Every structure is written in structure tokens, then in C-alpha cells.
């Protein structure tokens, strides 16, 4: 908890985006999380991603559940829509909001407790339905607000701060997301903004359920020797398969990648993801291979990060349901009650 008010002054030469905003204009209130919390770095990455994409803050809805992670929407995009919902219920609140107004950008922020325990089912259904959203899990492997009990994502064999060894098997959120049909799946680390910011940007641009698992060390309860979610452990065992450069609008001015190391992935809105491959064999469009790659490396104690899977020509819930292009909340009585003649026609077609 910090009581010093963050000064309004900013660096006089900060870059500005299309709307004349600096990244400071995308901030929220000062974080009340513990000093050094990985979640604050994710907050900073979301701020940076929205700034770089020149998103208008009022076009964003940030929705969360309960937990340390779910407090973070207060700390970014102070001028956006927000909904701090019930524990584990972010996905259903977000699905409803998305159905009512498909024009907003939906940022669902959750944690390992919120999504892998109480909200596990909610998470699964939002993914399989393909709700057009960014689903960020701020994953620290412990219940921080209740003083550091293991969460469902804690690895078997990892040690708590008090020395207790975890005997339960871990839920790998990335593996589940791949299996149940998320069309964009990535993992990153709060301590690596170079990798995380472009992933968030790409996820925002993605049309469909985009899932990012962000390992985020809990400085208070899970940053000790024996933890598998500490800064040191994640840095040592990070197996990055690729890095992204997200290009929006204008084509890149110069491309200086070595041949064969870059794959260009075009998104539905024309955004191009330049995928710098660290592992030349890795194919981001192969769901099955991604799952086995993940399992294989997990067995070796490695944490695979990067863009792990992206579906070509992904479609979202509105596409599946064939809803109208206009947001439902913008439809007037005229469109909703087209009159007896139209009704008769529909009835006739069903006879």
C-alpha cells in the first residue's frame, strides 16, 4: 500500500499516440498491492499495450472477479468502463456485456484462484464459446489475500513459504485453454514486458477468445527458494518459443529479420503479427502439437512462453450466433418490433 500520491507531472518528452495521449493517460489509481507485486507489471503492460494501439479508453470494458489480480483493473485505464464482479464470475458477466454491446474491447482480468478454482467452469465456457475478449490470468500459484495457501496452479512438489510441499497436481490453464477451443493462447511472465506487451496487443486485436496466462510472482508469499513461480525460478526455466512484433496500420518501414526466422501472421482486422521464432520447429497454428510441446516441456520443468497457438480465421460468439452487426443495446424499437407483416412472414416460414 502506498500513500504517496503519484504526481501528475510527467516526462516532458513522452511519446504521444494517435489521440495525443501519453501512456500516463492510460493509468488508473495507484496500486494498493504489495510493493514489487508481479501484477503491477502486468498492469503496466496493459497500459503500454493500450497506449501503443491508440485505444480510446472509453471503448474498453475491464471486468474482473475477486482476488489480488481482480483488484488491478482499478490501477489501469481510469477512464474505461469497469465491473468488479463476484468471485469467479468474470466470464459470465463479460459474456453478457459482450452480447449486449459487441463494439467494446473486453479485458477480463482474473487470477489463478478466481479462474482455476471457484471460476474454473466459467473460464471453460467462455473459452469454448469463443467470446471475443482478452482473458488474462495473473498467475502466482498462491492465495495472496489469505496469506499464501497453494492455489490450483501451484506445481506438485513446489514449496510454500513455510516449507510445506504441495502434493496436488497442478492445473495448467494454457493446456486447458488449448483443449477447450480458445483461438489465441499465450503464456508470458510479468518480469518480461518485451514479450508481454506485444502479446496483449495481439490478443486485443484477435477476434475471438484470447487467453494469456501470465506468471506473476507473489513477492509476499511465493518468491522464495523452492517456489516454481518466483522471479528467479521463472527466469531460469523460461523457454520462450517466440517473440511478437505487432504492426497495425502502416506496413513496417524496414524488416531486418534473418530469413526463415520470422513468420507473418495476419489477423482479421489487417493487423500483422511478426513472429520472431526462437524455436524454428514450433508451429503456432497446430493446436495438437502445441499441447504436446507444452506437456513435454512441463515434464522437464520448463515453462513454455510466447504465442503458443493462434487459429487462422478465428470466429467469435457473435459469428457463431449470427447476430446483427449493430450492438444489441443500440437496436431501437423499430428494429426489434418490425411489425405484423414481418411476423406473419416468419410464422409462415415455420409452418
Amino acid at each position, binding site marked *: 500500500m502506498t500513500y*504517496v*500520491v503519484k504526481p501528475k*507531472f510527467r516526462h516532458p518528452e*513522452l511519446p504521444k499516440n494517435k489521440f495525443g495521449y501519453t501512456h500516463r493517460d492510460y493509468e488508473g489509481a495507484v*496500486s494498493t498491492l504489495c510493493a*514489487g507485486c508481479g501484477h*503491477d*507489471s502486468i498492469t503496466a503492460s496493459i497500459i503500454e499495450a493500450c497506449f501503443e494501439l491508440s485505444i480510446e479508453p472509453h471503448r474498453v470494458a475491464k471486468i474482473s472477479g475477486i482476488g489480488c489480480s481482480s483488484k488491478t483493473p482499478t490501477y489501469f485505464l481510469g477512464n474505461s468502463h469497469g465491473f468488479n464482479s463476484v468471485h469467479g464470475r468474470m466470464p459470465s458477466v463479460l459474456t453478457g456485456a459482450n452480447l449486449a454491446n459487441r463494439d467494446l474491447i473486453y479485458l477480463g482480468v482474473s487470477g489463478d484462484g478466481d479462474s482455476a478454482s471457484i471460476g474454473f467452469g466459467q473460464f471453460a465456457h467462455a473459452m469454448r464459446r469463443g467470446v471475443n475478449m482478452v482473458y488474462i490470468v495473473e498467475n502466482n500459484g498462491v492465495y495472496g489475500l489469505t496469506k499464501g495457501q497453494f492455489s490450483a496452479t501451484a506445481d506438485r512438489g513446489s514449496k510454500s513459504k513455510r516449507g510445506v510441499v504441495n502434493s496436488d497436481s497442478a492445473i495448467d490453464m494454457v493446456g486447458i485453454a488449448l483443449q477447450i477451443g480458445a483461438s489465441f493462447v499465450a503464456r508470458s511472465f510479468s*518480469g518480461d514486458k518485451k514479450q508481454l506487451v506485444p502479446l496483449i496487443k495481439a490478443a486485443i486485436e484477435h477476434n475471438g477468445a484470447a487467453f494469456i496466462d501470465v506468471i506473476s*510472482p507473489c513477492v509476499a508469499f511465493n518468491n522464495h527458494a523452492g517456489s516454481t513461480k518466483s522471479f528467479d525460478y521463472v527466469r531460469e526455466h523460461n523457454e520462450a518459443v517466440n517473440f511478437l512484433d505487432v504492426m497495425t496500420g502502416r506496413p513496417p518501414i524496414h524488416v531486418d529479420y534473418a530469413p526463415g526466422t520470422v513468420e507473418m501472421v495476419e489477423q482479421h482486422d489487417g493487423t500483422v503479427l511478426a513472429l520472431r521464432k526462437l524455436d524454428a520447429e514450433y508451429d503456432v497454428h497446430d493446436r495438437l502439437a502445441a499441447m504436446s510441446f507444452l506437456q513435454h516441456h512441463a515434464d522437464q520443468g520448463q515453462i513454455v512462453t510466447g504465442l503458443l497457438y493462434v487459429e487462422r480465421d478465428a470466429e467469435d460468439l457473435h459469428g457463431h450466433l449470427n447476430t446483427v452487426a449493430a450492438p444489441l443495446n443500440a437496436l431501437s424499437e423499430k428494429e426489434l418490433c418490425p411489425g405484423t407483416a414481418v411476423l406473419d412472414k416468419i410464422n409462415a416460414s415455420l409452418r
Partner: protein
Amino acid sequence: MKPTDISAPDYFHKVVDCQWACPAHTPVPEYIRLIAAGRYSDAYMVNWESNVFPGILGRTCDRPCEPACRRGRVEAEPVAICRLKRVAADFKDDIRARLPKPAAQNNGKRIALVGAGPASLAVARDLAPLGYACIVFDQDPQVGGMMRTQIPKFRLPESVLDEECQYILDLGIAFVGGKRIDSMTALLNENFDAIFVGCGAPRGRDLDIPGRKEAAKNIHIGIDWLSSVSFGHIDRIGKRVVVLGGGNTAMDCCRSSRRLGGDEVKVVVRSGFEEMKASAWEKDDAMHEDIPIFNYLVPKEFTHDNGKLTGVLFEKVRAERDAKGRRQLIPTDEPAQHFPCDDVLVAVGQENAFPWIERDCGIAFDKWNMPEVDPKTMASTHPKVFFGGDAAFGPKNIIWAVAHGHDAAISIDRLCRGEDVAVRPPPQINVASQKMGIHEWSYDNEIALDKRYRVPHRDKALSLRDIKSEVELGYDVELALKEAERCLNCDVQTVFTGQLCIECDACVDICPMDCITFTQNGDEAELRTRLQAPAQNLTQDLYIGNSLKTGRIMVKDEDVCLHCGLCAERCPTGAWDMQKYLIDMTLAEPACHFKA
């Protein structure tokens, strides 16, 4: 880049921009905090030790600290450092008991000081308590030098000047007033252990154009005229006055004229308004008193009617840069402009004059007829003779004179002890963490967003009625507190310990000014291009911290750091700490006698 050596005294001193820019290196943030705490006497003493004349400088200083103030790089205007100094002087208690006592014992050394201005008085203040017999000579009957003769009383009341000069005289200094030193050789023959020359730059430049001799009765040299006004020899001037020149003396001349019967006072300057040498605030004050400033006019002739001045004729010019980029004034073809007037004050510069120093007495002079003076020790080529103030390097200002005085006093003290004058004492540095507990810091690190507060002025009509009535009223306690709150506490330094850092990025994320970056090392020029925010101010250092587990470095651009302490506040491991670096320049005093 190599990791920053923060134990080098200059590194953090430079971060305290105001103190670094002050010739006397006054610990500015320290006294501003004391003012905010209502401890005016303490604030005064911090100043008095460092710059000797807080009340005088708080009204008249040229303020090199203010353009340097970090606040000016963050928002529109710097902290009103100078006028806060005056607050300390205005609201202090009787501090006489806290001043040094006259030396209990004379050390047998006699020092002659030529001129009783700020430089000589600073030397005397530093040396007298150590037991030196200081004898100050001046042609005027009272001490103060140009502070008395050239600064009008409506800017510097006599009471303030007298008070601060008296503090020095009370140290047991002998003042010989009304005595002009006419021969350096004769003075040297009096066997003083050292001689300090602080006689200023006493000769006002004249303007040798047609009509000068004929109309001489109504054409006055600015600094001489101000001096006569100061001593009460002149108390009237004509209704229409033209002041020639664009420096601070010209501003004092025109404003004094307004108070001595000048209804229509004009300042006419050769150069453009922006290039005028006068400080911006002095120009503002003159214009506020209905004195127009005319630019790009070169005086050609004093017109007169049988010896009675009728006005000044000017040629119109425009500024143009030549091939080498030097500015030149090119006459336009417009007709000459005539300004009718009753009196002219010539304030077109002043220069040094040493007719009394025989050129064979062992003091070398350079081709500009200035003594050769070592800028560090203030020593001339004669082992016993030192210079300071305007006498050393030409016209500067009071704060430079004080700084010279401190340096000369150290030299004289070392000379008299038979030590090497070239060896200088290092500054005294006191480092202390400001952390008092969780979320508790010993300084006020909330950043006030307030704009600079204006100093209240006396009503114009009242001010113009009496030349002794001070125009600026000074901040009251409430305004002083608000202005003091604008100070960013740049002496409370961000100190980084790489061994403690876990690279969690908390400091990077919270820093309101994007000062901090963790990245791969590189050379400085290249590093500056890839920081969190552009680091284009090359006068400000990059602070490099190493010993990080990932092999990266921590780079902090000192340029616009607010010293708010949020990095330390959000650091989970105490790798960042806010530590107050008090840097005191060592003066000639017994406590600092060190063996080099």
C-alpha cells in the same frame, strides 16, 4: 557504461542543480525545508554560513540557481529560491548569539583588504574568527561597496545592508573608511601577511559621441550617479530622462529617476529586448513603473542648445547574423530618431581600473590589463596578493564575490600557515537515509502542483513617492510555505543497491517521470536512445547500477526525477533508498584543517 561512483562528491552534488549552480554552493533544498518547517533562524544560518548576506542576496541576487532549478524542467517556472532566502531573513529571530565570536586571541597575522564590498567582507568574515587581524580600507565612509552605492534603496533597504555588514564588523574587523589606497607598493611595504583586493569594477563606461562635452552638465555616468543618489548628494533629476544601456544598472538608473522627479523616463538600448543584459524580472519591474524600453537604437549625438542638453539622436538598426553567426547591427535607412530630454544617464557597462597597482610590484597583468588570477585559489602572481569579486575577472555579481571571498580566505589561511595554497579542502558530505518506517519518510515527498507564487509589491503610487521605500514586500508566512512546498527536495537522493534488487520492475512501473530502465549495457550515447523515456538532456547524468542477477544494468536518467521517493516506496527489498546528501563547502575554519 561503468557503474556510477556515488561516493564521488560531485555526482550527487550535480543532481542538486540549484546548489551546483550557486557559486557559493548554498544548500538550497535544506534551507527551503527549514522555511517550510517555520525554522526561519535555522534557514538563515544555513544561508549565512554559505553566502554571508542572506537578507541582501534574498533581494538582489542574480539567482543562477533558478534557471538551473529542476522544477523549471518539469513545469513552467522554477522555485522562487531567491525570494525564499529573503523569507528566512525577514522572519528570523535575533540570531546574533549564534554568530561566531570575535577571536579570543589574535594569531599575529595581519590581512589588508582593499575595498569594503561583498568580496572583502566575505574574506574578513571567514578569517577574523580564526584570529586574523583584518583591516578593511574603502574610499567611502561606510562599508558595503557596490551593495551600498549602486543598488537603490527601494530594492535593498539600508537597514538590511547595515544589519548584515554589522554582523561581520562585530567579529572584530578594523574598518578604515574614507581612505583610498593609492599605491600597492606602499601597501606591500606595510608588511601585511596577505593582501586581498576586492575593489570592484569601479569605472563606468562613457559614450564619446558629439555633444558629450558641450552638454556634460546633464549627462551622467550611471554608476557614479547611483552612488551620488545613494549618499544623498543628488536628489533631483529632470522631468524627461533618457537612460542609455540595457543592463541591471540601467534598470536601477531609470527606476531611481522615476523617484527623483523623472516623469517621462525612457530606456534606449542598442540591442533587441531579448538580448538585454538586465535580468528579466528587473525589466519587468521597470516596465511596471511606466518606463518604456526602446530597442535597436544606437546613440549618435547628444543634441544641445548652447550647452543645454535638448535630447539624444539615435540611428535605427536591425540585427543580422554574418557568415560566422555573429550578430551585427546594420543601420536601416530610416531617418534618425530624436528623443528630447533634460538629462541622460549613461549605463553602457563598467570596467576595472587598477591605476593604483604599480606594474612592477610583482603582480602580472594580462593583455586586457586585468590581473592574472587563479580561478580556484584567487591568487595573483604575487604570493601575498589575492583578488576577488569584480576586481578579479570583471563585473559579475554579489554571489560570485562571496564565492571568491571564501576561496581567497582558504588560500590566505593556508598561506599564513605555511601550507600549499593550491591544495583545496574537499567538501564535507553527510549522508543519511530518510526512511523512518514503513511508508514514513522524513521529508515531505508529496509533489505540489502549484504554479510559482508572485511576490507582493507595494502600491506603485506609494513606491514612486519615496526612493527609500522598498517595492517588494516579500512573501508572507503563508505564501512562503506554499512556495517552499514547490521545492522537489533534489538533495534527497535516489540511492540504488543492485545486490538487493530482484528486478521486479516495481520502480519502473511507478516512476511518474519514466526515469528508470533495466536494460543491457551499452555506451552512453546509444543507451540514451533506448531508455523508458528519451534522455536528451546531456547535461544531466545517467545513474548506472549493476550487480543484477540477469546481468542487465539499472539506468536512471537524473534529468527530471521528482525525488518523490515512489521508487523506494514501491521497492519490496529496499534496493532503492532515499538518502539526504548534504554537501557543505569547506570554508577557512579550524575544524577543517586537514593534512594533504
